[in-house]
């Protein structure tokens, strides 16, 4: 029809949807409900050509409204979810899963568990195979809740053993939860994906029962298998595990290396740098310098005294040894244009001095070496520092003055 302005069913519902959208964005739940009431009759039309049909719309929008609306109860919410489950068999497991999430958010662990068990037993012809992924997730979450129960039992057991009891029943229950959890958690982490919470729990279980080999294998897979999406946390977990196991520095360093590549601003970079600095290998020490400089490129680290102290220590050590000044020069090359304004402005000197003397001390050392004794930052801090008669500041001043030629060499 040439009459584009003609109001028909489809257009009317499109407009309705945009009103709902506005209301949702402004958190006007009553208004959203008002328009949704008018929208629901879309269910009686077929939208098989659309990407997202009315049944999915209604599910999603209805969930939001019922979750936030002040007059809506959990009972109503659950009733609505049950209806939504019947609406689209292709979405059945997804709806179940989201329902479970909401129950968990509301602290209804038992109901969530029941729903998960129910969903696990669902079968519907070829749909069961098609929705295989969702099924795996459901099993995984049930495994997670089993872990949670295991954890509770474990705590009870520990309490009792402290008090001197030994509780066989609790122990047995604990083991049974372990078995149930382990089975499902193991399954899901085989599939490439981001499964931080599952991995953590599974490893926790394995460690408790002493199966460190399995744990190590799981974590290695999670971190290094290229099929899995790059995930900094995987490396963090591996590192933490290795640390707990008392592994060598070499393996710890290798675990953190990739983390540095992916997330140079990660908080573990301090640990990393500390390990690297102490290494006997030159390459490692070089890497350490690179790591700490890279971390301090990020605004979140500007006021991290520990990080500055790492850098200061390493810089000082290099200067004293008079070896490897070229390292500093290399690192400084790409930073000399913007670090002065970023870290060593006069304003920052004032502020750092007022707020955190240790921070200003460390920074002043670095500034003095990199920018020379005449730089704003160093001058301000050392001047103030010496005035306050703090010994270390006098030492600092002497040190920088003595090594001023270094600055000339690295800046040239």
């Amino acid at each position, binding site marked *: *029809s*040439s009459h584009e302005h003609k*109001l*028909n069913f489809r257009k009317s519902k499109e407009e309705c949807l*945009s009103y709902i959208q506005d209301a949702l964005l402004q958190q006007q739940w009553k208004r959203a409900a008002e328009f949704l*009431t008018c929208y*629901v009759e879309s269910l009686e039309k077929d939208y098989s*050509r659309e990407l997202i049909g009315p049944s999915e719309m209604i599910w999603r929008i209805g969930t939001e409204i019922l979750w936030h609306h002040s007059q809506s109860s959990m009972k109503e919410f659950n009733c609505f979810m049950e209806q939504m489950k019947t609406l689209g068999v292709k979405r059945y497991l997804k709806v179940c899963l989201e329902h479970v999430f909401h129950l968990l958010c509301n602290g209804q662990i038992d109901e969530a568990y029941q729903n998960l068990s129910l969903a696990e037993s669902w079968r519907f012809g070829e749909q069961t195979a098609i929705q295989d992924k969702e099924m795996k997730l459901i099993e995984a979450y049930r495994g997670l809740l089993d872990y949670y129960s295991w954890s509770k039992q474990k705590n009870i057991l520990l309490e009792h053993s402290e008090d001197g009891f030994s509780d066989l029943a609790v122990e047995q229950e604990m083991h049974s939860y372990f078995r149930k959890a382990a089975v499902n958690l193991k399954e899901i982490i085989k599939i490439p994906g981001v499964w931080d919470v599952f991995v953590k729990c599974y490893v926790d279980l394995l460690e408790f029962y002493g199966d460190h080999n399995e744990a190590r294998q799981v974590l290695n897979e999670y971190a290094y298998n290229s099929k899995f999406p790059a995930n900094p946390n995987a490396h963090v977990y591996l590192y933490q595990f290795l640390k707990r196991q008392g592994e060598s520095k070499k393996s710890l360093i290798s675990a953190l290396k990739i983390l540095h590549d992916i997330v140079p601003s990660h908080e573990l970079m301090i640990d990393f740098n500390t390990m690297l600095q102490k290494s006997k290998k030159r390459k490692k020490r070089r890497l350490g310098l690179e790591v700490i400089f890279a971390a301090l490129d990020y605004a979140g680290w500007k006021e991290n005294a520990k990080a500055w102290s790492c850098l200061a220590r390493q810089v000082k050590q290099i200067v004293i040894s008079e070896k490897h000044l070229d390292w500093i020069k290399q690192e400084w090359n790409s930073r000399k244009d913007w670090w002065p304004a970023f870290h060593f402005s006069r304003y920052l000197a004032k502020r750092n001095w007022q707020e955190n003397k240790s921070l200003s001390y460390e920074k002043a050392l670095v500034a003095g070496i990199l920018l020379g004794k005449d730089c704003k930052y160093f001058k301000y801090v050392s001047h103030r520092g010496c005035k306050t008669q703090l010994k270390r500041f006098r030492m600092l001043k002497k040190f920088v003055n003595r090594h001023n030629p270094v600055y000339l060499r690295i800046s040239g």
Partner: protein
Amino acid sequence: RDFNERCAQCSEVNWGLTDGGRFYCRSCHNVTERTREVVNTDFITNSRVQTISKGLRKQEKNDGGCEWYICEGFQLVLKKQAEALEALGVCPQMKDEILCNFWRCYLQKSKQAYCKRPAGETVKALSVCESSTDVDSDPERPSLLHLLSLSESEGDLQTDCSFASSVTKVSESTSVYSGSVDGSLYLMKNQKEKLRMTMPMTLSFCYMALLWLREPITLSELLRFVVEGHIPYLNVFQHFPEKMKLCGLDLRIFCVESWPVYEEVFNKMHELAAFLELPRFPDITDSCFLHPDMLCMKYLMEANLPDELHNWTCRVVKKIGIGEVDFLTLMPGNKSTRKVKYDVLAAAVIVVVLKLLFLLDDHYEWLLSEFAEERNKNNTEGGPYFEFKKWYEVVKQSLDVEQKKLDEERAKYLWRCEKPLFYSVKNKSKVLKRRQMVVNLQNQFGKLSGSVRRAEKPNPSSFQLNWSERNTDGSCFHGHSLKGVLQEKCGLLTAMNPDYWLCTVKLCNEKLCGHLAHYREVEFPQSYHFVLGLFAFLLRIQPSYIHDEVCMVEHKLFNKKLYKKLKYNTVLRK
């Protein structure tokens, strides 16, 4: 329809019709009492059109339904609409005489009733199709695909449930049929010459009857009443008696999923009038509601404009001759005269008058307004001078509020009704389940809506915007004076504004592109757009529609000057 009973005398089935319209057995010449009845002319009491002998009608089918024809359905619809109009104050003559006569005439002319069935034409209901191959093999039967792809004025139902877009569904054994006897036949034929009946056309019928009686309802008002629910249109089939089962293809005919558009109903009405070979309609004189002078007065009031403008609209009307009886009265079939859209025309005249007095070029009207404001400060006696700025602010505010309400209404329309619709018995249970779910959800979220659901339709009113002179805040401009924009010249009051800009120098050929002009908001001043928008809101039509009419009025008004200019141009070229 074929008479299939066995002859009482010879047990053959071989019937013919006597001159008197009775059936006789061709084998033994036994004449029966059964007659092929002409349509029952008692319009009011018996709303069923009976084109077959009563004895044939199978009263009871399995599901308690009976046989019915599409035109019977439409007849019911028209009846309901006429009753609604009567309730709105239209004279009963409309329902009892005019409309039913028109309808009868239509049935006769389109050979659906009141005549002998043309030879060879039998009504075959499209029965259950087993598979697509069956359908294809029958050359006489239209293929399902063809039926599905017929473009309708309401093409929406194509996308509906079992009529889904994919061809694969068609090849499954969906039983495509209709509750009515001739539903499929109705859709099948190329009825262009015979003017096939549609839902929007029912409104054309109504309008035609209203026009014949010169009732004070314009087409835009009629359509507005339809949308507001005062006249049955959407879901009118729920008033069909229980026995008339509606399913399958009937839905395509009777279930509308869009509001009819002015142009559609208007054009169809004229087609209809010509088709029915109606004579010249009763005269529209200057005492009629539909006369431009009257309608202008109404719209001026509604637009909150000074009454004094009415003098000007009358002058324009007189000057271009659109107040003449012959111009205004409808002569069906006369292709040379332009069809008059009374409401749009009146609105266009007002727009032209506003342009004459205020220029509306986004500069001059504000200047004049400032000027008037100044004078108003010292004005102690008589009515205040009309200030365009003040009027604009007041009207815009109200208009925005009303427009916003209207927009929300559009988004909140409920199209479905309680009566379930299904294409086939097969998906009946599915449909009912869905309906139940919809009702549940409506209840659930309705409770959370907070506001009281508007249970009642607003009372039908002729005026959408009301301005009361009793308001002391000065928001009513009816009594304001135009002295601020007029001057006296040679004893006549003329506009101070010496200029005028034409909406278009050349009119398009309506027959080619359907419009006289093509309106694009960005090409015209904001004030002009505002004024168009105001009347577009009041008449519930697109601004471009009014713009077309404005162009037409302007060209009539400045005809001589335009003609001279054209002539001058051609002279120059020589």
